[in-house]
Every structure is written in structure tokens, then in C-alpha cells.
């Protein structure tokens, strides 16, 4: 079991800034996120889209914001646990114990839930028969591309993931790229490469159409797609890759006994604590009168929450408010000379 001062759930901008606010107060934290990298919605939903309302930053992308926040918290050498989802939260006197789906256990007097709108999971095919093939011949991500060699693969989707994997896997497999409309959304050079592959007969593109049925018993034998004009076509397929983006699921958070308001967690607006002492919620996932789902609001929320975290983690010490500009202690913690 790993002991720390605060367990942060969610590595989005608010979770990252929580590391900073705790760190300058001398508190250690760890961060858990279901995704494979930091950034949360900023990285998953709009990595290249500009954000215009970060104070003193006239314009930056989700990716830049994440990169800068990671840079800002570097001095604290925080440990991140990616690809892990918190499943259980248990009370142990004045501490909390957190268990993940990867069987990691953490304990701390404080938990900060900065989980956005929950954990990201791939959006699945809506056909019922898709379930029984999932993980065997239907995939929502490519973990090991060797497993996709010498196959008849039908790839669904019209965005970057669908296009990039079409290019990559077409080197050693037969690819059908299937999309519900004629336009694809991707980098210009990717689109050009896709066009060239189609022209050379290396891949086949089917639009505008959607998946109608999957045929096969143990393995997939073929799929049938339906075009917008009502025509159908059977395509020999043994593997389906589907890239319809990610959906957000609140998941187990709803079962931790916290007061909820729809899909958000009720907090007070003094220190953003929930109805459970030592469990805080900040960012998009928290709710209080007047709450705005802005990144800057999340920054404010963790700043205040971190003060209460300090009091719980260091009950024998007095909390002293300090400025980073003038505090020698904070500058030492940041490694500044």
C-alpha cells in the first residue's frame, strides 16, 4: 500500500494543478487516471483546439496547456498511475484507502476527485451481436499491431484514429474503411495518403454507409453495410476496428456515498469538501451554487481545497499562507535558488 498526503483522481488540468497547490504547501500526492496520459478532456476532446480563457494566456491549445502544467509540477516528482480506474474508496479512521482496477492500493488523509465527467471509455458498436465478438475480433483500440497482420479488417470511423490505423495496417492487411458520410476529418497529408492508397487499390473506402449486421458464429465471416440509398453490401471481414471516439462514464464514483447532483458531486464552496471529511471534488465534476465548468474555476477550487488538505495531513502544524514570489520555503520546494 502506497502512503501519501493526497490521492488525486484525474490527471486533467485541475488534477495537475492540484499537485502544484499541494506541492507548494509541502504535501505529497499521487495521481490516478483511466487514460494512458495526462490532460483529460483537454487531450482527448480538443488537443488542437484553442482555449481563450486561461488568465494571462491569450490563446493555447489543450495540448499546450497540459504540457505547461506538467512542466509546472515537475519539481514535485509526482507519481502518476495511468490506465487505472479507482474502483473502491474505503474509510480507515482519519484516512482513506483507494483501490484501483489494477489492484494498486493507496492511503491518504485526503482524496481530491478531479474526474471531469468521469472516465473515458471507447464508444462501442451499437449492434447487439458486436458484444460476443468484442476482444476476439472486434476491437476499439490497437494495443499490439502484430495481432492485425494478414487479416481482412473493416475499420469504422472518419476521424484521425480510423485514418491513421488504416494507413498503418494497410501495410500488411486488407483494409475496408467505412464511414457514415463522404468526408473524413484528418491532417491533409493523411487524407492525401488515404486517397493514394485507394487509387492504387491498396484499400477500399465505403461511404456513406453504416454497419447493418455481422455474420459469423465463433469468428466473424463477413459484415453487411447499408448505404444511405438503401443498398446493402456484404464484405468479407474477420476483424473489425471501430473508432467512434470516447464516451464519458461516471463509473464507480456514484457508489462512494457522496451527495450527488445528477452526475456531479455536491461540495461546499469554502474548501470544496464533499459530505465526507477529507474527500474533495474540483473541476467539472463538482457542484455548488453558481458553479461554472471552466478550467480557471477548477484551479481556484483546488487552491482552496489544498489548504484543508494541509490541515488534515499536518494536524500538528499551523497553516501559514505564503506567496510564491516571496516565500523561501516554497522556492526551495520548487527547486529555485
Amino acid at each position: 500500500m502506497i502512503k501519501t498526503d493526497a490521492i488525486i483522481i484525474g490527471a486533467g488540468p485541475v488534477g495537475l494543478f492540484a499537485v502544484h497547490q499541494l506541492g507548494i504547501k509541502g504535501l505529497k500526492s499521487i495521481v490516478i487516471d483511466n487514460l494512458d496520459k495526462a490532460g483529460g478532456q483537454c487531450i482527448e476532446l480538443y488537443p488542437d483546439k484553442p482555449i481563450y480563457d486561461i488568465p494571462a494566456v491569450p490563446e493555447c491549445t489543450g495540448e499546450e496547456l497540459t504540457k505547461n502544467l506538467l512542466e509546472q509540477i515537475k519539481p514535485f516528482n509526482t507519481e502518476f498511475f495511468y490506465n487505472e480506474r479507482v474502483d473502491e474508496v474505503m474509510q480507515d479512521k482519519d484516512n482513506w484507502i483507494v483501490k484501483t482496477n489494477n489492484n494498486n492500493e493507496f492511503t491518504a488523509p485526503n482524496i481530491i476527485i478531479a474526474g471531469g465527467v468521469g472516465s473515458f471509455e471507447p464508444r462501442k458498436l451499437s449492434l447487439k451481436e458486436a458484444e460476443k465478438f468484442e476482444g476476439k475480433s472486434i476491437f476499439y483500440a490497437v494495443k499490439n499491431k502484430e495481432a492485425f497482420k494478414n487479416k481482412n479488417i473493416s475499420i469504422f470511423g472518419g476521424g484521425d484514429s480510423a485514418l491513421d490505423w488504416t494507413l498503418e495496417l494497410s501495410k500488411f492487411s486488407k483494409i475496408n474503411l467505412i464511414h457514415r458520410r463522404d468526408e473524413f476529418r484528418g491532417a491533409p497529408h493523411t487524407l492525401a495518403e488515404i486517397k493514394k492508397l485507394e487509387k492504387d487499390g491498396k484499400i477500399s473506402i465505403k461511404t456513406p454507409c453504416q454497419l447493418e449486421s455481422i455474420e459469423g458464429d465463433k469468428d466473424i465471416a463477413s459484415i453487411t453495410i447499408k448505404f444511405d440509398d438503401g443498398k446493402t453490401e456484404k464484405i468479407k471481414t474477420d476483424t473489425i476496428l471501430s473508432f467512434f471516439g470516447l464516451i464519458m462514464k461516471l463509473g464507480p464514483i456514484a457508489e462512494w456515498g457522496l451527495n450527488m447532483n445528477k452526475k456531479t458531486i455536491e461540495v461546499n464552496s469554502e474548501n470544496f469538501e464533499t459530505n465526507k471529511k477529507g474527500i474533495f471534488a474540483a473541476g467539472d465534476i463538482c457542484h455548488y451554487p453558481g458553479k461554472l465548468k471552466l478550467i480557471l474555476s477548477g484551479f481556484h477550487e483546488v487552491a482552496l481545497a489544498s489548504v484543508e488538505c494541509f490541515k488534515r495531513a499536518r494536524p500538528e502544524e499551523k497553516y501559514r499562507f505564503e506567496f510564491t514570489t516571496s516565500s523561501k520555503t516554497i522556492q526551495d520546494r520548487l527547486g529555485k535558488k
Partner: protein
Amino acid sequence: MPKITYISHNNKKVTVEVPIGLSVMEGAVQNNVEGIDADCGGSMACATCHVYVSENWLTKIEKIHDAERDMLDMAYEPKNNSRLSCQITVSNELDGLEVTTPIKQS
């Protein structure tokens, strides 16, 4: 105030008055109309406020933009008359608008 009717996939109709300037999504969320999740809160980042708009209304609402079209690719069972309800602003012209929600949003 314009009246907006939300029809569920099994044909249950709910009609609510929505102030001009709010989105069709906000009209649903503020009145606890089921079938519209709106996880991202209207920033066009999640496709969980997806609705179907009947042909005769499609031409009356604001034109669809590329970004919305891209997002609709991620929606559950999108059709040619799919829209994101967060992108439809309620106006007097839309009084009587009917939108149908899909079987599920994600």
C-alpha cells in the same frame, strides 16, 4: 415563450416552454427531460445531446457546421437528420419544434 417538444424513442412526448436564446439542449436539461445527457455541458465535445430533427424543421434551424458534423460521427446511431441539440438556439421561429431523442446517448 417558444414551445419545444421532445419525443422519446418510444414516442413519449414532453412539451416545455424554453426561453429565447437558450439551446434546445438547455431546455431539456433545465426541465429534466429524459433522453438528453449533455455530458460536456454544451461545448460540442461529447455528442450526448444528439437528436433527430424532422425534415420540415431541418431547413428552419441554423445550418450545421463542420465541427458539429464531426462530433455527430461519434453519436449513437446518427442519421441524416441528426443534430446536436446544444447547437440549436431557441427562437420565435422555432416555436413548435419537435425533436426526437435516440434510444440512448452513448
